[in-house]
């Protein structure tokens, strides 16, 4: 996933996967694929919430105010 992907985009994708899990009869291969993708997205989202991104911090620190 590129750095550009926003949190809300990730969440949207997660919700999409949820909807598919809820409605579709996915075959096992697709199911595995979807779950792996969801896990990946959730991990990225959690990191955004809980881990300081030094890049953002640096931009703000370097900025004149």
């Amino acid at each position, binding site marked *: 996933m590129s750095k550009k992907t926003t949190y809300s985009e990730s969440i949207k994708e997660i919700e999409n*996967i949820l909807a598919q899990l809820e409605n579709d*009869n996915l075959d096992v291969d697709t199911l595995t694929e979807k779950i792996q993708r*969801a896990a990946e997205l959730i991990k990225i989202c959690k990191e955004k919430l809980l881990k300081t991104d030094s890049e953002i911090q640096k931009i703000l620190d370097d900025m004149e105010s």
Partner: protein
Amino acid sequence: MPIPSISLLELSLQVKESLKQSFSQAVWIRAEISELHEKYNDHAYVELIEKDPESDRIIAKAKATCWASTYRLLKPFFESTTGEYLSAGMKVLISCTVEFHEMYGFSLNIRDIDPTYTIGDLAKRKLEILRRLENEGVLSMNKNLAFPLLPQRIAIISSSSAAGYGDFLHQLTHSSNGFVFYTKLFPATMQGDGAQKSIIDALDKVFTCNEIFDVVVIIRGGGATADLHCFNSYELAAHCTQFPLPVLAGIGHLRDETVLDAVAHESLKTPTAVAEYLIEKINETYETLLNAQQQIVVLANRQLQNEKQKLIRILRQLLSGEKEFIYKQTLSLNAVLHQLKRLSEKQTKRNTTTLDGLSQKLQGKFHLYITYKKNTLALLEKEVELLTPQNLLKKGYSLTLKNGKIVRSVSQVKTGDQLITKLHEGEIESVAQ
């Protein structure tokens, strides 16, 4: 002829006297404060004006004073009731006595102020500002912005020395539940005459780099007698409501909301409350995430379970199908076997019968054959017997030998050869001639 006259002082004293008679008691008047200076032991020197409501032109003006002994009581009461400092631009209902001093002229002495009038006026003005914003179609612009799921990058407009700023940062860092926040202070003067411009300047600065922020917070320290004047200005409200990022206000007041509060995306009582709000928002986002995670696990399990059930069903079907198949196969095999057996039995029987017939026939034939052969042999034997030399001799034939060998031709015999002639009975010895 000298014109009758009185001196300036006499006039002044007369004016003073007649005013005293006409205005023996304090009068309630409506006016607007155009200037206010606190001087010398907390006396207040005020300039009051009245404007023409149509043209906004000043149509009356008067000096007023409020002596420290009164002002010390009036000021805190007024400010705690209205939430505003007594300041220029404010409409007031004051009780005053009319004074005239021979040196300083006409002035009013303020004895009392009715804050409810000012509150009413402020409310009216706020309402006017809000109506104006509404007419311009911008009133709810900020409120209508989607609040970010992750309000992490925060542009703070505050005074670096403000207690509220410290409270805000403290709350964010100490009660964040581990959530990450990025803050950047855009310093501004938060009270006094320059506040409005200073805050608007700070907003403009944030605007130039708004893409690296999620929200703007406008905060300042609390206090019972906060000067909220600048937060009731049209200009600041217009800037805030049209700002591309959600604006959160935490300007620390306990009374009626200001125009800023009304247009801000979220309005909270204190900077600490703003920080709590942001943490709560992120927490909601986090819980949504955890929920989604849990749901995915549950649903995935359900799907897997379904899949498993399906497999089991198929397997069962297969198994029962196989059994049935085997059963059917066995049945038909049995039938075939049975038939085969029957057929083979029949065949065997038939064969046996045939064989029996054959062998009987064969036996019969063989017997005939043997008999025939026997007969033939007997005949042959007889014939052979008839042809033996003994039998031939017996029939009268004789046999001539020369030197023990059978003579078959005259040429074999020369004169004088001794010959033996064998007969059925006896021999004849002779000599050829």
